[in-house]
């Protein structure tokens, strides 16, 4: 692998890690609240949060562009303060984070829904406040689903293409991730490098998923002993 290719791989992993870190707390919190919430508008809220899963990524990217472009309200406000997002690495993080968010939420929410809510209530009667009850009972009981959600989100972020190319462009050395580089290589007929990068992408995703499986299996074995 050339130095250039290695740089693309490291950049991609770094962007995916940042995106996952960005959505970790809000994603897990949203998952827990959605699992507990029974009030009006639950269905609409669930659906809205899952939309990025089914929308074409380019639509999500387009919305982000409309929001963050320099002559748009939010983007303009940020630009006045010297913060550029569109066509920078920050746009890569943001686009992949938005696309990965519903995967984390869905997986973690299912895990929280399987936690008996009475156990959380019991923790409260034993003196734990709502936050302590979450960290001492709900999260430890749902950790497998939460971890699976984090890995799915990370893997999704590694391979994000459609939203990223709209908001971040495909600028070698600045915003070009693996998926974007492969697209670029194929377009200009550099298929040999595309094959190599594709192989690396497959390898990364495989390692991420396999590591999770391994952690979960090891933990389950330990629990059973």
């Amino acid at each position, binding site marked *: 692998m050339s130095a250039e290719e290695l740089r693309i791989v490291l950049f991609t992993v770094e962007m995916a890690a940042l995106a996952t870190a960005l959505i970790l707390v809000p994603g897990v919190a949203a998952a827990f609240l959605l699992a507990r919430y029974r009030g009006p508008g639950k269905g609409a809220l669930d659906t809205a949060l899952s939309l990025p899963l089914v929308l074409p990524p380019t639509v999500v990217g387009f919305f982000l562009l409309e929001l963050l472009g320099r002559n748009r309200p939010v983007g303009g406000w940020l630009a006045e303060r010297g913060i550029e997002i569109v066509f920078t690495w920050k746009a890569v993080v943001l686009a992949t984070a938005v696309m990965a968010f519903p995967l984390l939420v869905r997986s973690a929410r299912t895990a929280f829904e399987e936690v008996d809510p009475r156990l959380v*209530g*019991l*923790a*409260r*009667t*034993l*003196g*734990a406040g709502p936050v302590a009850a979450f960290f001492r009972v709900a999260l430890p009981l749902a950790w497998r689903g939460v971890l699976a959600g984090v890995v799915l989100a990370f893997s999704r972020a590694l391979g994000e293409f459609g939203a990223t190319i709209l908001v971040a462009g495909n600028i070698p050395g600045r915003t070009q991730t693996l998926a974007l580089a492969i697209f670029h290589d194929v377009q200009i007929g550099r298929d040999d490098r595309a094959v190599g990068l594709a192989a690396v992408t497959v390898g990364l995703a495989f390692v991420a998923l396999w590591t999770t499986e391994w952690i979960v299996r090891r933990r389950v074995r330990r*629990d059973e002993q």
Partner: protein
Amino acid sequence: MTTPLVEIDLSLDLAAFELRVKTQLASGVTAVMGPSGAGKTSLLEAIAGLRRRTRGRLAIGGEALLDQARGIALPPERRRVGYVPQDAGLFPHLSVLDNVRFGARADATAVEAAIDTLEIRPLVGRVPRSLSGGERQRVALARALATRPRLLLLDEPLAALDPGLRERILPWLLRVRDAWALPCLYVTHNVGEALAVASHLVVLQDGRVEAEGEPRSLLSAPAVVGEAEAGIENLLPGRVVAHDTAGGITRVRTNTGSDVSITLAVDRPVGAAVTLAVRSEDVLVCAALVEGLSARNVYPARVAALERTGPDVVVRGVLENGGGELLARVTPAAVAALDLAPERKVWLAMKSHSIRIV
């Protein structure tokens, strides 16, 4: 009842009706009985602070945990109310020891005392999954006690256990009752349990207090207990007179002077006071004296009253020679076939096997 420690005046909208309970608890155990869906568990959850829409007032020792009028509503973690749900509700990811000391308020002394009271020290390193039903209940009870609660709520702690195990858990409950001197609300379906542990009884029906008072007198009133779904029980206090090991029976003389044969109970010494319980549906009503009946206990009696209870009729029979009363639950068809009416002479029969010591 001594000075009320716990004042309850709560209401809560449930799916089918409004739960509305007003009562006072002294120290000691108050049993809560009533049909499934009467609101018993909801009442416990409301007291524990787990039902946010609960209205009214709740105070322990004069301190309000909930007082809508004054805008007080303590969250569960500040109520110091110990709650043991029906299935024990142990945290599956924690060891027995970590379960017991889960409570943020739990200090080491209370944890140790709770472990000792329930004798669960041999279990502390185990995980809940590996415990038997009875062990789980003991651990859950210890976990609640370790937080030094001011009120203990027990939701059918013995319901999930088989009858043999129940008798082995009951002593722990009595020990907690006596050693920790806590007011305690005890939900149960079982008349024997209520009699064994409770000094006060509240009967719930459709979310309302249908009746309350001293358990023994309340539980022999058919109208109350019929609705409590406990099965109308005949309760016969008496003393053991003799054991017939070869015949497999123990003879008990009731306080009203009737002799009752029950299955051999050598663990009760001669002269020991016992209370016998017979479900009303296990008492046979005979229009004439039947010869050669296997039932060991047959008494001539006079029908004092017929009371309609749900689909059935309860026959209140007064035994001859001042032998006391027996309640027999029969179908309306049997009333017609036997031509049962007040003042009619009948024979009441009970199989030894249908009589239990409570």
